[in-house]
């Protein structure tokens, strides 16, 4: 590692240590559930694994094994350790197997996701029918986050440990086997599986699997046959089991086989049958293969039998599926006028991102903003949009008939309202690594400067001399220079003067030639007679021009006429086109014609168009529970629907009740010093720490937890509990808390508590924390932390300037050189971003400032310590540490704030996102202020239900090891220029693996692994274009949809009728049909107590409380889109089929909601 990198991590870690010390001191004194910080630091993956599992000694052993072997082998080696008792303190066989299985899953998921703790409920021994013992593993839903391979290997590890311990194999009973088949089918139907095994396969696995796959029930569906089996505890499908069996074993059989072959102790010969599909008939494999390759609309080779056309990738329509109202289509599949594929990686490109010009963002009515997710035709499924202003912008026709390309966002804003047609959406920048990651054949590249210059360099021309000349701009030469070079050096024509001949038909080409024949040059401009075909031809070619009623004037025409085989005097130098030119690509492509008549080589300007549509809007918002909660303190119904603590403190249902006395379920805790009992984390009598105090709910015996943390009454054989119904004096607690931190009620608006606690010990939070949160306008998440969500976007190099940070500040952060290696002196120099540095959106910065104030006051007033942040301006947040954390994971990553952006996203190094196991295709996750997490997070607040431990920082990574992140990020290319061979390979539709471009993975594990992320394209700022997508600024759904359809009309590459059809088909009709169905089979609900009824009670009123029961689906929600859908269908010329469907639905609505005998058909009836 470079010394500078080492220093960087040390700085982070020393600040972390500082915070940790302060937090430890604070928590040792306060009323928190535990007297220490509850987020342990993990320096590496091994640490995370150990911390997530809580099994001491694992980390050390993992590090040892990782030196010598692969992760999967390490998992098996650890299984041996568990079996032989070298790791973990398990006495029983089932305990050992459980430890081994959890560790394996943790290891295989790099200790980040929640699967090892949430996805495996427990392991038990079970008696076989022959009296021997076998192993049953209880899986749970969150095992999903482990992925198929880790799921399957967990079974293998269980089996291996079982074999080592001498436990027998599971002998499935016949009814159990049948049950598996029914259950997996049922689960697939109700929840859906990525892979649906045939019944035969399921039964085969069930019969042969040496471990009983078991699990908790998920969902309400019930199996109809094979119910109430002796050894299966539930009649509902066991989701975790189904996942492991189908997406694990059935789908990943080949992978497991690699390992079973190497192990002597275990033998799964049946895997071969599964892989070959030779269970029963031999048709299984074919069918499953067909399922995998379902996306038939993926790229096909250019038809080899039909050479009469250019190489093209097949249009794919999948991205248009499920189009919904308000989210526009920007281009139909592969259609002229749509986004033109340009290859390259901008500095804010990473993985699953796409670059568009900021002018385009404005021109598409601001529907695109930095971070907006789009669904794309290729190479992957979705992209996060980033602004790149070094590529070409859109070409539009203005209301006055002028056609111009707009490469400037300000200009785009100026003309935005005058755009009549968007003839071309501009370029779309995708990096090579994106094709590698998606294993997508390269699509023919646009002819761009990067390509041209390499061809020019290969020619006779002295490019270096030209580059050095102050009078020559190679990137945008004059037309004379461009034509000169093309002719003289036999290089293809410069892209700036290359038009889109491939979009023009030969007939149009000839028509245009005739027009040029008759054209004249006036005042340096070519003037052609205006006809529709000529005007459209110029638009198709993207030739900028102006028009009058009779004429079309082209200011820059020399390259156009030269390409068409005319002299500068407009003399045509050819008579007619060949047969072949006419036949090329069915006559729809004038490239052959150009090749015949042009005096130089012309390349296809934009052979690949990328269709796409809007997915999700970008996000930058505080994360709040709904309704927002300031304090995790239970107040029952006393606070009203607002859960207002102050109101609860005054609550008195009757005249004789003492105000504020409320009965709630809270944990019973015992003081370690004086033994008194309380619900608080600190003893009200002596101030010492308290701990949960368990009793047997039956006999009342006091109980102590065993080493595994389980509490059981030996006499009654039931679990002990620390939870009681207690009457709390909220009035006293509230006012004590206020006075403890010297606050008055007036310093905040409402202090919101919770109705009840969902954690296992029901430990309330000290109310003081809530009061301070309310005062500073922040609210708590379920785990006690304050969070802010942002869409993830990557960036590898930044300018201090664009982050609103001074260059001095940047140097203080440890940035000393720019990417060229020159000392950092100016705010506009580009520097390579360090891997754990993150950029906050303006909103996030503001929210973290509030959080910092809250934390400081908490430290001072509640814990009696010095403030930690002491910030008043957001600049002061620069250098501070935060936690980054993604949903479905249980590990936070420490990040450092380096600046701010007006874009509504969280920019960070791609490795930072990948370490959270996120990519950037519109994913979002949260940041927390470091000290807030350390002080306020407690596992004891986490809900005691499946999944409760997800999305909670059970462990933190203090430094990123590139080898331990999601390897998707390793496929990012890190070069300054793609070689000529690459561009040529795209014309062959080559496999991306055949091209040699350096990827990030090459540096992983080397000293350079934290640097050298070069890019091919710069952008002047990482926040360009609108700050927010129009989707978020427009009001109602109807407004959004009208804007969407209006935009569809404007875009040449979009068929507005198809958009209208799809919106009706995928949004309105499903909504109407679904709601009508829901209406006529709906549940009802009591308005007073909320009890739900499957069917209306015969008594009419609530059977529980006598309250008024009402419908859950009303007429309004059923028919809300009817009129709009009908209007849109009419206005946009939808098919008769669609209109009839709407008409039938309209009549159905009438029939259900109108009284035949009392029809009110319109206002006329009342006149």
């Amino acid at each position: 590692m470079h010394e500078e990198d080492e220093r960087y991590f040390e700085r982070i870690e020393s600040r972390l240590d500082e915070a940790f010390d302060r937090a430890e001191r604070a928590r040792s004194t306060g009323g928190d559930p535990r007297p220490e910080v509850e987020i342990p630091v993990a320096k590496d993956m091994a640490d995370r694994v150990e911390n997530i599992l809580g099994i001491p000694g694992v980390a050390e052993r993992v590090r040892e094994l990782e030196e010598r072997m692969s992760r999967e082998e390490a998992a098996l080696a650890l299984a041996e350790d568990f079996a032989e008792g070298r790791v973990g303190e398990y006495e029983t066989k089932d305990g050992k197997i459980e430890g081994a299985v959890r560790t394996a899953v943790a290891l295989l998921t790099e200790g980040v996701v929640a699967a090892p703790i949430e996805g495996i409920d427990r392991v038990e021994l079970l008696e076989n029918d022959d009296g021997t013992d076998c192993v049953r593993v209880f899986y749970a839903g969150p095992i999903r986050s482990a992925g198929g391979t880790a799921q399957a290997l967990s079974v293998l590890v269980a089996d291996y440990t079982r074999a080592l311990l001498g436990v027998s194999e599971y002998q499935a009973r016949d009814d159990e086997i049948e049950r598996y088949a029914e259950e997996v089918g049922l689960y697939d139907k109700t929840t859906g599986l990525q892979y649906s095994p045939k019944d035969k396969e399921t039964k085969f696995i069930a019969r042969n699997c040496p471990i009983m796959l078991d699990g908790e029930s998920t969902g309400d569906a019930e199996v109809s046959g094979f119910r109430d089996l002796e050894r299966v505890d539930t009649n509902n499908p066991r989701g975790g089991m189904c996942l492991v069996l189908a997406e694990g074993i059935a789908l990943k059989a080949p992978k497991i086989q690699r390992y079973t072959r190497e192990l002597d102790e275990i033998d799964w010969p049946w895997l071969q049958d599964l892989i070959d599909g030779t269970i029963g008939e031999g048709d299984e494999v074919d069918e499953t293969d067909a399922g995998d390759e379902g996306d038939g609309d993926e790229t096909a080779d250019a038809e080899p039998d039909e050479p009469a056309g250019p190489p093209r990738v097949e249009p794919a329509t999948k991205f248009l599926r499920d189009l919904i109202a308000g989210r526009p289509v920007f281009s139909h599949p592969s259609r002229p006028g749509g986004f033109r594929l340009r290859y390259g990686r901008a500095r804010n490109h990473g993985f699953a991102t796409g670059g568009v010009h900021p002018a385009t963002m404005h021109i598409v009515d601001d529907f695109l903003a930095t971070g907006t997710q789009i669904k794309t035709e290729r190479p992957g499924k979705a992209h996060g949009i980033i602004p790149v202003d070094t590529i070409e912008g859109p070409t539009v026709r203005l209301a006055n008939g002028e056609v111009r390309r707009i490469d400037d966002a300000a200009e785009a804003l100026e003309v935005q309202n005058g755009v009549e047609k968007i003839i071309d959406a501009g370029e779309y920048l995708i990096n090579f690594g994106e094709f590698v990651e998606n294993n997508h054949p390269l699509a023919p590249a646009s002819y761009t400067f990067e390509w041209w210059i390499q061809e020019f360099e290969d020619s006779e021309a002295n490019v270096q001399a030209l580059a050095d000349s102050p009078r020559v701009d190679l990137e945008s030469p004059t037309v004379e220079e461009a034509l000169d070079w093309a002719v003289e050096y036999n290089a293809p024509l410069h892209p700036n003067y290359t038009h889109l001949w491939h979009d023009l038909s030969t007939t149009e080409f000839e028509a245009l030639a005739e027009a040029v024949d008759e054209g004249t040059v006036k005042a340096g401009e070519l003037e052609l007679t205006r006809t529709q075909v000529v005007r459209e031809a110029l638009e198709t070619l993207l030739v900028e021009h102006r028009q009058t009623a009779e004429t079309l004037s082209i200011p820059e025409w020399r390259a156009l006429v030269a390409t068409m085989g005319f002299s500068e005097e407009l003399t045509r130098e050819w008579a007619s086109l060949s047969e072949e030119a006419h036949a090329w690509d069915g006559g729809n492509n004038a490239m052959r014609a150009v090749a015949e008549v042009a005096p130089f080589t012309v390349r296809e300007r934009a052979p690949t168009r990328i269709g796409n549509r809007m997915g999700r809007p970008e996000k930058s918002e505080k994360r709040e529970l709904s309704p927002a909660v300031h304090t995790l303190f239970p107040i029952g119904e006393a606070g009203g629907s607002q859960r207002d603590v102050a109101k609860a403190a005054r609550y008195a249902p009757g005249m004789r009740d003492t105000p504020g006395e409320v009965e709630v379920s809270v944990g019973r805790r015992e003081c370690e010093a004086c033994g008194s009992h309380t619900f608080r984390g600190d003893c009200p009598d002596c101030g010492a720490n308290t701990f949960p105090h368990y009793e047997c709910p039956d006999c009342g015996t006091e109980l102590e937890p065993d080493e595994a943390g389980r509490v059981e009454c030996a006499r009654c054989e039931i679990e002990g509990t620390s939870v009681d119904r207690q009457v709390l004096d909220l009035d006293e607690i509230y006012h004590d808390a206020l006075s403890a931190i010297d606050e008055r009620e007036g310093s905040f608006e409402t202090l919101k508590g919770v109705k009840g606690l969902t954690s296992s010990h029901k430990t309330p939070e000290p109310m003081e924390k809530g009061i301070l949160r309310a005062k500073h306008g922040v609210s708590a998440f379920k785990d006690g932390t304050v969070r802010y969500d942002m869409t993830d976007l990557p960036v590898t190099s930044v300018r201090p300037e664009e982050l609103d940070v001074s260059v001095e500040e940047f140097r203080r952060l440890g940035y000393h050189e720019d990417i060229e290696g020159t000392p950092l002196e100016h705010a506009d120099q580009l520097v390579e971003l360090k891997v754990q540095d993150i950029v906050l959106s303006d909103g996030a910065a503001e929210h973290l400032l509030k959080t910092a104030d809250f934390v400081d006051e908490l430290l001072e007033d509640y814990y009696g310590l010095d403030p930690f942040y002491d910030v008043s301006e957001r600049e002061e947040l620069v250098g501070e540490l935060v936690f980054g954390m993604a949903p479905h994971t249980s590990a936070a990553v420490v990040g450092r704030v380096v600046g701010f952006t007006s874009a509504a996203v969280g920019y960070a190094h791609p490795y930072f996102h990948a370490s959270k196991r996120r990519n950037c295709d519109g994913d979002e996750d949260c940041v927390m202020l470091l000290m807030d997490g350390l002080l306020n997070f407690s596992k004891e607040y986490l809900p005691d239900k499946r999944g409760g431990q997800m999305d909670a920082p059970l462990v933190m990574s203090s430094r990123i090891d590139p080898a331990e992140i999601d390897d998707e990020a390793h496929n990012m290319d890190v070069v300054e220029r793609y070689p000529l061979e690459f561009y040529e390979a795209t014309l062959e539709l080559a496999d991306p693996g055949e091209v040699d471009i350096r990827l990030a993975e090459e540096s992983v594990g080397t000293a350079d692994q934290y640097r050298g992320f070069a890019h091919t394209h710069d952008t002047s700022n990482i926040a360009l274009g609108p700050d927010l997508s129009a989707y978020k600024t427009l009001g109602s759904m109807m407004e959004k949809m009208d804007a969407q359809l209006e935009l569809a009309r404007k875009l040449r590459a979009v068929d507005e009728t198809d958009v209208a059809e799809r919106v009706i088909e995928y949004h309105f009709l499903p909504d109407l049909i679904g709601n009508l169905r829901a209406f006529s089979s709906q549940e009802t609900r009591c308005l007073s107590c909320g009890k739900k009824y499957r069917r209306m009670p015969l008594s009419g009123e609530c059977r529980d409380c006598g309250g008024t029961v009402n419908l859950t689906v009303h007429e309004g929600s059923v028919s809300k889109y009817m009129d709009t859908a009908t209007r849109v269908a009419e206005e946009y010329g939808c098919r008769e089929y669609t209109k009839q469907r709407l008409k039938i639905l309209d009549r159905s609505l009438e029939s259900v909601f109108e009284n035949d005998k009392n029809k009110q058909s319109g206002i006329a009836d009342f006149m």
Partner: protein
Amino acid sequence: MPGETDRRIITELAARGYNADREAVTLLASEADPDDALERAVEAAPPDAFKITGEHLREVFEADARDSPRDPTAETPDSTSNTDPSISPAELEDRTTDSADTSPSETVGDDPTRTTDERVPTDPEHRFVEIVGDITGQSTGTGEYSDFVTVFRDRYERLAGKLRGRINHRPADAIQTMPGGGDAEMIGMVNDIRSTAGGHWLIELEDTTGVFPCLVMKDREIAELVGEIVYDEVIAVRGTLADDAGILFTDEIFFPDVPHTHQPTTADRHVQAALISDVHVGSQEFAEEAWSRFADWLHTAEAQHVEYLLLAGDMVEGVGVYPNQDEELSIVDIYEQYEAFAEYLKEVPGDLEIVMIPGNHDAVRLAEPQPAFDEELREIMSAHDARITGNPSTVTIEGVSVLMYHGMSLDEIIADLPEEKASYDNPEKAMYHLLKKRHVAPKYGGKMRIAPEEHDYLVIDDVPDVFHTGHVHKLGFGTYHNVTAINSGCWQEQTEFQKSVNIDPDVGYAPIVDLDTLDVTARKFT
């Protein structure tokens, strides 16, 4: 008309010096030849009797029935092979409930060249058609909560009325206050059924005062009945309260059911009705040739007595019934589908009396009860002056009442009940359950949609003589407590969807019912 017969029977008996109870009159009236039956009854009457009772009559008729050729399957419909359509379709030629009626030469449908014996137009003067229970134009519900409560209360009241004779109903709130250990009886709508940890069954019954849990022990014989109980049907139970009076240990379960003694009415003359459904015009799979063969056959002399044609829904394939349906349509326009259907309907003889109800593919509301086609569609289907009524409707033709229901609830019944009680291969068995529950679509929620109206049109108030459904595209018929249940097949070849779920439809069958005997012959036209 039935009223007339009853009065005549009473008068005749009085003339011979006998009184008669209600059941006896009904039994006599429902005999094919009431006069003959009356004579036999009087002959067999005990010398000292002055009143003819139902019980007495049953003895008389049962003795007669031993050598009667008519309908030997009445009481045990599933036990006889000739009503069991589970035999493979290859063997299905002409199926019939009465083999005596089917001569081997009856392969008419397959022989359109036979033109010698042509049908002679029939005289509509003899015909008599009456329709009741039609929602069309009567839909007053506006989708309010109270409408739903009203319709379920109406269902409860009307079905409970059928059970009151057997049970001394105590309201749920009264049972809740009863001391433990005693006997109790209750009529309730099924609110919930679940299995307990011990594998027993807990049925929660509801009436207008509340709910009460009834436990059915798994080892009791009646536990077998639990499998056929669905949500929201009305049943009665008899049992013993637990010691803490919190639960009823159930000894007996009663369904509203069709009385065993039910005797169907028959026509006074030899006349037949063809019962079909699921034509699906507009689908690429519409079996056009089979349809034409059927229509041709109706023009032959052999079909001379077929004077009625009943169509139980799904005239056309419809639009938007499932996603991307347009790709499988031969006619994409819904009106053109009905126009085409009207053309196909014109192929049948003009003197046929036609009655039709809509189904789930038709262009009417999906929620049941479904009103009949609107004016626009009626206009299109004006051929032969067909009678167009709602789903369900009870159509009485020449005294024989036919309950026509498209059959959407059959899917749910088949899914909910064990294979041996209801399956796609034996759709008539699913129909028996609907008759037993006296409701065409008892289960609320799930896939069934209901539109709340001022009363429950889906209750089977009066026992029909014939119950006609379609929807599942499988042919099946049989009798349940003397009610003839017929699920007609379809006129649409196997669709891609059906292939994927392994449903092999019975295409091109027309069950023909003899209205004077209620014998069924299924004719095949493929």
